[in-house]
């Protein structure tokens, strides 16, 4: 089943034409990665999908429903969750309060409780820091919190924007392993935006390459990882 179908979307920042016709598909249960250099338009794509940015033209279908132009808070309720670049945890609130805000749209108290336990298992470091202000966590811990907070909303599709950005190399491995685990164990569909193409293509099923607001290449992740153009431009070979 196609969960997300993005058709030829254009986005402008004032006079800047940031997305020049991006199309992509995400099949249920898969990890799809969107890679590209800094400034290619990856974050802009996610911000348009979650409704933070208005579309100039184009269409977005999510689980058979058109969501272009829908307000952000309704798109979240439809099950599309955007874990933004730079983590954006609520710095002055505790780790626990951040996780609870992730479940803002839910009312099933017992479900929320068991999901919290699940997050603690996924990220034991968070459990040790529940009453700490989120702003005092390390970058890697904040990223875990941001992912955990997103999972608390029980999304149908999770969009992650550069979860490896500014994180200690050891933790990067751990974060990618966890993303793969969430996909495998929770059957979570994931759209992963990354500059770290090497790691992203390793865990993804499918990939898209973005350059200056356009998709220039797409295909199976393993094929992309072997493609000489990708190797030269993004994998440092």
């Amino acid at each position: 089943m196609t969960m997300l179908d993005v058709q030829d979307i254009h986005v402008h920042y004032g006079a800047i034409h940031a997305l020049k016709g991006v199309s992509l598909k995400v099949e249920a249960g898969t990890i799809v990665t969107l890679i590209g250099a800094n400034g290619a338009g990856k974050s802009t794509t996610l911000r348009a999908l979650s409704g933070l940015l208005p579309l100039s033209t184009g269409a977005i279908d999510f689980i058979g429903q058109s969501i272009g132009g829908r307000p952000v808070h309704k798109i979240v309720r439809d099950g599309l969750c955007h874990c933004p670049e730079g983590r954006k945890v609520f710095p002055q609130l505790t780790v626990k309060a951040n996780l609870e805000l992730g479940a803002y749209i839910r009312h099933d108290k017992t479900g929320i409780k068991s999901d919290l336990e699940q997050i603690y298992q996924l990220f034991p470091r968070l459990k040790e820091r529940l009453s700490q202000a989120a702003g005092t966590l390390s970058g890697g811990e904040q990223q875990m919190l941001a992912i955990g907070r997103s999972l608390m909303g029980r999304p149908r599709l999770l969009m992650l924007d550069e979860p490896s950005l500014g994180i200690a190399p050891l933790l990067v491995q751990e974060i990618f392993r966890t993303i793969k685990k969430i996909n495998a164990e929770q059957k979570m569909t994931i759209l992963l935006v990354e500059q770290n193409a090497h790691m992203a293509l390793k865990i993804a099923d499918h990939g898209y390459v973005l350059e200056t607001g356009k998709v220039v290449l797409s295909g199976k992740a393993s094929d992309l990882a072997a493609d000489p153009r990708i190797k030269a431009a993004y994998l440092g070979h």
Partner: protein
Amino acid sequence: MSEFLQFLINGLAVGSMYALIALGYTMVYGIIQLINFAHGEFMMMGAFVGAFTLNRLQGTPLAVALVISMLAAGLLAVLVELVAYRPLRRQPKIFVLTAAIAVSVLLQNLGRIVFGSSAVSFPAQFPQGSIGLESLGVWVEYSQLFVLGLSLVLMAALWLIVHKTKIGAAMRATSQDIDAARLMGINTNLVISFTFFIGASLAGAVGVFYGMQYSVDPLMGVQPGLAAFVAAVLGGIGSLPGAMIGGLLIGIIENLVAGYLSSTYQGAITFVLLILVLSIKPTGLLGRMAPVKV
């Protein structure tokens, strides 16, 4: 000593009203970074609605009039935000700041047209008089006790809303990062409306407190509005405990200055304090350290 205590008590009574108004300034600032210069006018509107209810609808209990005033001021603020501020949200900050000043003048004149420019009084609410604390040689007026007590109740209610309810959690999230809050599924427009409503309803309550002690006129919101603005800055704009402490401090300092120096300086001292705070510690007393701001 007893003189000092008396100034302190008078200061606390006035200061608790400043604190309630300052809470509205600081909540709105915390959530959309706007100094809402029309905030004092919500207090004036609350006072007029209270006077109207008590004078025209004879026999209305004070509690009912208070609730009506709070609702009226709150709804007016929701309308002002919707009509005058929201359309300017994506513009440079100076636009909406200018709009706030315009709304302030507009509401003052609206008050003049609707209610007339002569001062109106509340009917006497409860027996005039005061309780003497003989041993200390100080007097607490009934109305002061009433205002202080109700102010505490309202502040406690606000604390409960902000810290113990779902909409409170949404307010705290929105004040820290509005886009992140939207990504949690929070309808931040609703949260902003709610914040205006709560802040202005507190100001409306103060309008009733003022009306009970003094009289009501279209410009009555200006002085307390300014004092409360300075209180919010002194406490650290964006911080709820800061607004409460700032309000009480300004009330006390005003009364000490008026008592020991001269009442001529009472108004000026507020501005001296503002300049001092802005030049010594612009973040205010609790500005940066406040663990949870709204």
